[in-house]
């Protein structure tokens, strides 16, 4: 219905008649507010007012707010009683909020904040590692507060439940490694060295890397999400106030089980990869099985194998550390749990690569 008003001698008279449900006429509203700006007095008449809803309340509320701001007198007394109550309820501000938190930061400050974040993140990560190590120390002396059932549950989850996916992926990786290598080696008629390539590649590093990436995505993310949700439910706070170290109760069982299973999964990945290579070698390259096995066994070195397993062990530590760290430090809403899981996986993979780089250098210097 039209919003009819007239402005005479600085008195604005607003006549509401008809139905005002779903009223959304911007031009008329602007005209009304412009007229109100010139008035000294506002009077509302509602003789023929029919049905109305919040869209009408919005107009009256806005009018009253402007009138109060400009110290104009207004008379809403002819409004139906319930409408009048509603407008006064809206005007009855019970408190003025402090201005909303400012979320924009100048670029220099943002840059500084970014640098500082990295630094504090690194320091608190190190502290977390320290607390975890002391938990492991307490565990070794039998003083850690850890429920065996939590440990067994975690062991089951990152143990035999992960076997299928790790086997499948590393079989495929062995297959691909052999296939890509064969294309090059065939040009020299040296395809038999596919066996050596796959054996060295898988045992030295690829087995550990594949197991690590799979477990980071599968288990690291689930650690972050599970502990993050406990943070949201204040379960972590409950543990702290009971005097139970969070690292003992939540982090230790998860870390121990990854430390145990990761080397085993690495060995599994090694052999599944070699198996994949054997498949390509015997089926596609017409190398006899005996010959392939002979070359594999000849190039198999215990050093390489142990270096791979050691990598797997360290990756287990990294995955668990990243997953639990971001879980414990997650925010308290649904979004931040998701973010914690993302950060856990990304940082676990980054740290795995950094650690691999450092170890490769050290082993080269040591000549292993």
């Amino acid at each position: 219905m039209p919003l009819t008003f007239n402005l005479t001698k600085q008195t604005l008279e607003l006549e509401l008649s008809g139905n005002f449900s779903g009223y959304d006429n911007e031009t008329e509203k602007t005209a009304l507010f412009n007229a109100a700006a010139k008035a000294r007095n506002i009077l509302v008449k509602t003789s023929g007012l029919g049905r109305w809803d919040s869209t009408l309340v919005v107009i009256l509320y806005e009018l009253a707010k402007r009138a109060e701001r400009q110290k104009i007198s207004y008379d809403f007394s002819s409004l139906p009683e319930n409408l009048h109550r509603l407008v006064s309820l809206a005007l009855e501000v019970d408190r003025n909020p402090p201005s909303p938190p400012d979320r924009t930061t100048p670029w220099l400050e943002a840059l500084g904040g970014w640098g500082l974040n990295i630094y504090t993140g690194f320091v608190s990560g190190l502290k977390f590692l320290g607390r975890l190590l002391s938990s492991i120390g307490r565990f070794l002396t039998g003083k850690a507060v850890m429920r065996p059932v939590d440990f067994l549950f975690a062991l089951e989850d990152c143990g035999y439940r992960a076997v299928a996916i790790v086997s499948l992926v590393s079989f495929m990786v062995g297959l691909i490694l052999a296939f890509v290598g064969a294309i090059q080696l065939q040009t020299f008629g040296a395809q038999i060295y596919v066996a050596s390539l796959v054996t060295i590649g898988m045992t030295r590093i690829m087995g550990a890397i594949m197991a690590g990436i799979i477990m980071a995505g599968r288990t690291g993310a689930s650690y972050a999400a599970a502990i993050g949700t406990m943070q949201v439910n204040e379960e972590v706070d409950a543990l702290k106030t009971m005097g139970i170290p969070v690292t003992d109760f939540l982090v230790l069982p998860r870390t121990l089980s990854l430390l145990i299973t990761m080397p085993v999964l690495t060995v599994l990945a090694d052999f599944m990869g070699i198996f994949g290579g054997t498949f390509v070698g015997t089926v596609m390259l017409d190398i006899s099985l005996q010959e392939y096995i002979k070359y594999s066994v000849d190039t198999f070195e215990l050093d390489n194998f142990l270096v791979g397993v050691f990598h797997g062990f360290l990756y287990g530590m990294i995955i668990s550390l990243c997953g639990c760290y971001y879980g414990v430090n997650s925010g308290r809403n649904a979004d931040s749990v998701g973010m914690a899981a993302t950060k856990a996986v990304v940082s676990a993979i980054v740290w795995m690569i950094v650690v691999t780089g450092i170890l490769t250098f050290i082993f080269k210097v040591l000549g292993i």
Partner: protein
Amino acid sequence: MSKQQPEIEVNNLTLGYGNFTLMKDISFQVNKGDIFIIMGASGGGKSTLLKALTGLLEPFSGQIRIGGTDFTKASPQQRNQIMQRCGILYQSGALFSSMTLAENIALPLQRYTAYSPKLINELVSLKLALVGLTGFEDYYPSEISGGMKKRAGLARALALDPEIVYFDEPSAGLDPISSKLLDDLILDLNQSLGTTIVVVTHELDSIFAIGNNSIFLDADTKGISGRGNPKELLKNTQNPKLREFLTRGGEKNA
């Protein structure tokens, strides 16, 4: 508005989970403009009944009619239409944590109306003002207190000018003053908009302050063991369990 027009009718409703029956053959009626209280001890099935009324839980048998339409047999579209006329305030507010208060309240408006963005903004400010949160548009739920979250949840429940508003334990976790403010707000909305209000609560002060009709759910008999205006129930009831409930274990029992 005639006072005796039924807004919600529940006929022979049987409710439960799996093979566990919680309520058997209960019937009651909520009139337009009522403030209707669902009382009962903890674990008595109050939230479960509310879930059935809002379509989150399928009853085993029986009928729920809302505004004359059979809600239990309604098609998904019909249900959606009915639910647009209902607002729900969940126990902990249930605000979406990744959205500001303004975005939370704007969501149903954007989904179900064709209003211009400017009008939606104005409506959002009005709803926030109604619950006493003027100026909190750009806050995230994590930046406000529990009582404020509840009021913001109420602002969202009121976004579409609902005819029925359901409250699940509105005063749980609130201090007495916030809880009184919320009660006043419920009364104000009921009186100014004629909104039908269904409140699940076991807060005696609220029950007597706002309720004009009620039912008392009894987990042992799986039925309703008292109904009517709570103040009169307190005077007249013969049921010892209800009497104990309404007098907080008998301390006022002279």
